[in-house]
């Protein structure tokens, strides 16, 4: 994956040099190791700032809306699916974005790596399939595949579904026999145990809305949680309000979520908010055979009526 950064920089340089695009949206190194952050580059001299490695877990499709002029964006498999969703939902026009596709081998679970160290991580390096991580007290060499994020481990769309240029060779797609083991595990519990599971899951939520802000699907001008007239949900730490927020946030993503993992990546309290959205992803797949963002020509299931729609829930 580290070899493709040269290619990404080269493509970005060419695009800006020929003035084909006004900006390039990509990742740059953050202020601390493993904290790559999104960056917008408008000048060709700055293309050296672009990086791409296994810590680029956020979703850049989140930053392509409401841009003036043509923009280029670096897109992993999941990002590209969210770009498709944006185009379907008229948030951006296809000819306004130049997509630099990056076949992806998965992003790493930073909290899992941090938990191996008692002190702060000072250095992160990637060498093929291994990660070399250093703190002041020790140095660890880890196998990347052992530390993948859960959504990347179960990902079946690692290659971009839509792109103008590729920055690397296409990778082999994983074939996953049981794509939703986590959802099935929760579903096997009794109703009360499921309730306790979700209570435990959200008990540390501080309502910072980082999950919502990191999500490319959440682009309402005023989010329901911010509205005051009417006020749909309380703004404090009451557990019912927290549950309502998570439940509705997930529901707004039904049939649109690509399980890119940006929500869980952004959460400062390490809450796996994907437990909510994954259930809906599984349902839309089971009921409509739908996976979001794969086809520019198809309307999402909650957007279109078909006489074959399952309707056993209504009397």
């Amino acid at each position: 994956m580290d070899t493709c950064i040269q290619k990404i920089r080269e493509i970005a340089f060419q695009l800006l040099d020929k003035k084909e695009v006004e900006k390039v949206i990509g990742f740059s190194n953050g202020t601390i190791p493993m904290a790559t952050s999104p960056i917008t580059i408008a000048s060709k001299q700055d293309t050296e700032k672009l990086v791409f490695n296994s810590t680029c877990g956020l979703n850049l499709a989140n930053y392509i809306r409401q841009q003036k002029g043509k923009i280029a964006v670096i897109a992993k498999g999941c990002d590209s699916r969210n770009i498709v969703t944006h185009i379907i939902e008229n948030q951006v026009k296809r000819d306004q974005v130049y997509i630099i596709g990056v076949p992806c081998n998965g992003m790493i679970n930073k909290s899992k790596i941090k938990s191996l160290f008692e002190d702060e991580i000072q250095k992160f390096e990637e060498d093929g399939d291994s990660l070399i991580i250093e703190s002041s007290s020790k140095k660890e060499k880890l196998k990347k595949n052992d530390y993948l994020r859960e959504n990347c481990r179960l990902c079946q769309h690692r290659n971009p579904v839509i792109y103008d240029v590729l920055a690397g060779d296409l990778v082999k797609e994983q074939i996953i026999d049981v794509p939703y083991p986590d959802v099935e595990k929760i579903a096997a519990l009794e109703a009360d145990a499921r309730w306790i599971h979700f209570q435990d899951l959200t008990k540390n939520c501080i309502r910072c809305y980082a999950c919502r802000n990191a999500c490319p699907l959440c682009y309402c001008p005023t989010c329901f949680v911010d509205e005051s007239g009417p006020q749909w949900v309380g703004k404090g730490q009451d557990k019912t309000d927290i549950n309502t927020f998570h439940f509705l946030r997930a529901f707004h993503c039904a049939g649109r979520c690509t399980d890119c993992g940006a929500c869980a990546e952004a959460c400062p309290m390490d809450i796996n908010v994907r437990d909510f959205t994954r259930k809906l992803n599984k349902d839309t797949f089971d009921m409509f055979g739908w996976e979001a963002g794969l086809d520019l020509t198809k309307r999402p299931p909650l957007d279109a009526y078909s006489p074959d729609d399952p309707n056993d829930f209504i009397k």
Partner: protein
Amino acid sequence: MGNLLEHMGIERDRIHFSWISSAEATKFVDVVKEISNKVRALGPNKKLVKDYN
């Protein structure tokens, strides 16, 4: 929506969806009777209820 609520541990019988025309008085009565019977059987709901005390 019903599926996700159920997945979160809210009993399925508390959630009902129906489409009733204003001309369908008997259907309305039947549906409400069915809902109240099912909910009564479950007893008071303690989940997703805000405690103001």
